[in-house]
């Protein structure tokens, strides 16, 4: 039988109703519940970071100080950056969808260390609370990069933010540890490394980056805190210190951090492209190798943030070359996805609309990255809106689109219901165009010389700023609409059945929503993931109603 003959039904018992009460949620070891809790937390931090973004765009609507003074503006962009980077983007896909899906995709009952998983969640919450506390204390005006010597000397209270980020960093390290161990030791029998879903590979690569890079950030922030609190400084030029050392240590983490933000998104896109084109990936091996390539080479490129800081010519040249090299892996992925789509049987669903937005915007964002990797060009663009546009194209245009794609693709998996598809596609289009309206003008602004982190600007930049703010409001509306229909669908959406998309991904073998133990019987995956070349049969493995 190839279609569902009867109306799909919600499974009677699943992870959401297996145990009831708030306490069962707060003390859960179930990776699925932890993933859902992370998702809730992430939506809150995204809202908070978004509020700061809208405040910034509102201020930038007109030159001069209108809705806030300069100090408040500095605090706003700092907190926007801190919250969006550390409290939203870095945890986003791995902690929510990664937690939920990793064991399902490899046929495991849970992650390797379930209690550590819960600890990661509480550390995230603690770090978020500390950052909110910092906001209430009046916030920080150093920029999210905390460059010394300003961060060690400023009168705003930097310490709570440093500590908040330190704690969230710990959460990240423990999550990464958990995922690496899970992938190594808990795969179902017969599931070799080259048969894992691509999403699992990208989570694995991301986790390696998290474990190796985050401790360096922790240490450098600790050193800044020590200098502020105890006068024990290593970066103070007056005492023979080197501010560039801070930048080396900070960016050694923060550049791989952007690969933490994008790699899981690329995994989501790989899953969605195959599912919604009903086609095997053109080359599974290329997708895997490019994942590992990004994870490794991404560590070698950090100096491109320091081209104008006094870095040596040899250093700048080396980092410039390596930065261009890392773009090759992304290009390989884009070629693979587009060739997968060619002659596929395309289903223009909401997730796939986000996929198209992702690929289009990642293309431009990535190309602008190669542009700023050219040292001589970056001398003109550094610290202008060109760079701001570049990283927002990647972080919002790509990473956030992937998050939304994941949210729509796996919503039926996680909650057993469907959202209104037409509204989903329409809002996706709104968001994509809103995004382009917001950030394309910023490329132009930056090229014309508009510096970043400035509240005031010459009159002739205003039209572009107005366009950008208009786009930002479209984006904001789009997100609110998504929140509305997804919230509604949680209770009133059509029941999805086990596999509403007809996807061949491993995670669809269990019920939607899955039972607490993930599979009713030990799963066996006799075929490759994303395998659409088999004749259409219902995957029965590991599933007994």
């Amino acid at each position, binding site marked *: 039988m190839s279609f569902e003959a009867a109306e799909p039904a919600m499974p009677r018992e699943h992870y959401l109703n297996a145990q009831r009460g708030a306490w069962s949620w707060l003390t859960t070891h179930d990776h699925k519940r932890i993933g859902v809790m992370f998702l809730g937390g992430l939506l809150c931090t995204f809202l908070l970071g978004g509020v700061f973004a809208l405040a910034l765009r509102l201020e930038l609507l007109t030159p001069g100080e209108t809705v806030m003074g300069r100090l408040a503006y500095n605090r706003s962009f700092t907190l926007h950056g801190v919250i969006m980077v550390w409290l939203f983007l870095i945890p986003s896909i791995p902690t929510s969808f990664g937690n939920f899906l990793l064991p399902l995709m490899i046929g*495991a*009952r*849970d992650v*390797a*260390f*379930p*209690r550590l998983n819960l600890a990661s969640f509480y550390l995230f919450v603690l770090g978020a609370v500390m950052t909110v506390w910092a906001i209430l204390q009046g916030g920080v005006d150093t920029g999210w990069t905390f460059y010394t010597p300003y961060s060690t000397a400023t009168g705003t209270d930097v310490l709570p933010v440093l500590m908040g980020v330190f704690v969230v960093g710990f959460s990240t*390290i423990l999550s*990464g*540890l*958990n995922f*690496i*161990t*899970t992938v*190594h*030791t*808990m795969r179902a029998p017969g599931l070799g490394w080259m048969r894992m879903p691509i999403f699992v590979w990208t989570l694995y690569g991301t986790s390696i980056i998290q*474990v*190796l*890079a*985050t*401790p*360096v950030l*922790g*240490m*450098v922030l600790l*050193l800044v805190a*020590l*200098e502020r609190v*105890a*006068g*024990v*400084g*290593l970066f*103070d030029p007056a*005492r*023979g*210190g*080197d501010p560039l*050392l801070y930048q*080396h*240590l900070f960016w*050694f983490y923060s550049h791989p951090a952007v690969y933490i933000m994008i790699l899981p998104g690329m995994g989501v896109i790989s899953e969605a492209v195959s599912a919604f084109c009903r086609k095997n990936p053109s080359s599974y091996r290329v997708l895997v190798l490019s994942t590992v390539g990004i994870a490794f080479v991404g560590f070698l490129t950090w100096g491109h943030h320091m081209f104008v800081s006094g870095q040596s010519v040899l250093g700048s040249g080396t980092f410039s070359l390596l930065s261009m090299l890392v773009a090759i892996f992304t290009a390989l992925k884009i070629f693979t996805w587009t060739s997968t789509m060619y002659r596929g049987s395309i289903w223009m669903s909401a997730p796939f609309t986000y996929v198209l937005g992702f690929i289009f915007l990642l293309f431009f964002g990535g190309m602008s990255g190669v542009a700023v990797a050219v040292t001589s060009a970056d001398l003109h663009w550094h610290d202008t809106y060109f760079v701001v546009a570049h990283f927002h194209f990647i972080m919002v245009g790509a990473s956030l689109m992937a998050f939304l794609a994941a949210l729509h693709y796996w919503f039926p998996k996680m909650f057993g219901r469907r959202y209104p598809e037409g509204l989903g596609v329409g809002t996706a289009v709104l968001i994509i165009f809103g995004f382009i309206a917001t950030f394309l003008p910023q490329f132009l602004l930056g090229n014309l010389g508009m510096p970043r982190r400035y509240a005031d600007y010459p009159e002739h930049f205003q039209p572009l700023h107005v366009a950008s703010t208009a786009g930002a409001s479209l984006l904001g509306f789009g997100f609110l609409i998504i929140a509305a229909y997804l919230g509604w669908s949680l209770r009133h959406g059509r029941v999805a059945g086990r596999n509403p998309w007809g996807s061949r991904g491993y995670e669809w073998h269990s019920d939607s929503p899955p039972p607490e133990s993930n599979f009713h019987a*030990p799963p066996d995956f006799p075929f490759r993931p994303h395998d659409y070349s088999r004749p259409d049969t219902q995957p029965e493995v590991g599933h007994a109603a």
Partner: protein
Amino acid sequence: MRPEASVRPVVPQARHFGDEASRQDAAHLGMWVFLASEVMLFTALFTAYALYRYAYPDAFHQGRAYMDVGLGTLNTYVLVTSSILVALAITSVRAGRDMRAGAFLLGAWVLGVGFLCIKGLEYAHHAHDGALPGAWYDFDGFAVPGASLFFTLYWVMTGIHALHVLVGLGVLSTLVVRAWAGRFSATYHTPLELGGMYWHLVDIVWLFLWPLLYLA
């Protein structure tokens, strides 16, 4: 196939593993990953040391003349010996001698306390000289550019290391108590192995700190 591969996990909280071999693999791999993150934590400090040593080669080379090389070397012997005792504890528990394992761990713990005491003595000497970190540096005997950075790095690197020794002491004492309470056996002693690995990491970090700060 390893003998553990067909056995159910031996502890109740590990039911999500298919078998004992996976449980052990996961526990050990997880610990190694954690230790790798700790190594990267110290790497940030070693990088700072490398850069400043490159910038102030003479000051850093002269720095060791103002260090208590004797005490530092003694501390190295203390930590290495404590690592030996921890290794002996593991072999004991693998042979089923859990009481003896606890005794070895206690010995390692005592040596760890000794390490901290010797460190404290060194810190007192430096404080007396005025060789304090950062803005508090007041050592007239060694007042060339780079000198205060040498001592700041010394204090920060050995301080954070000492913090890890302190955590390690907590781990060791917990293991001693559990070992003597009979919680470990030849079939199950994973916490002991993992805790021991943490202590060995503390030793490894010191083995790099010692030549950089005291010897050369």
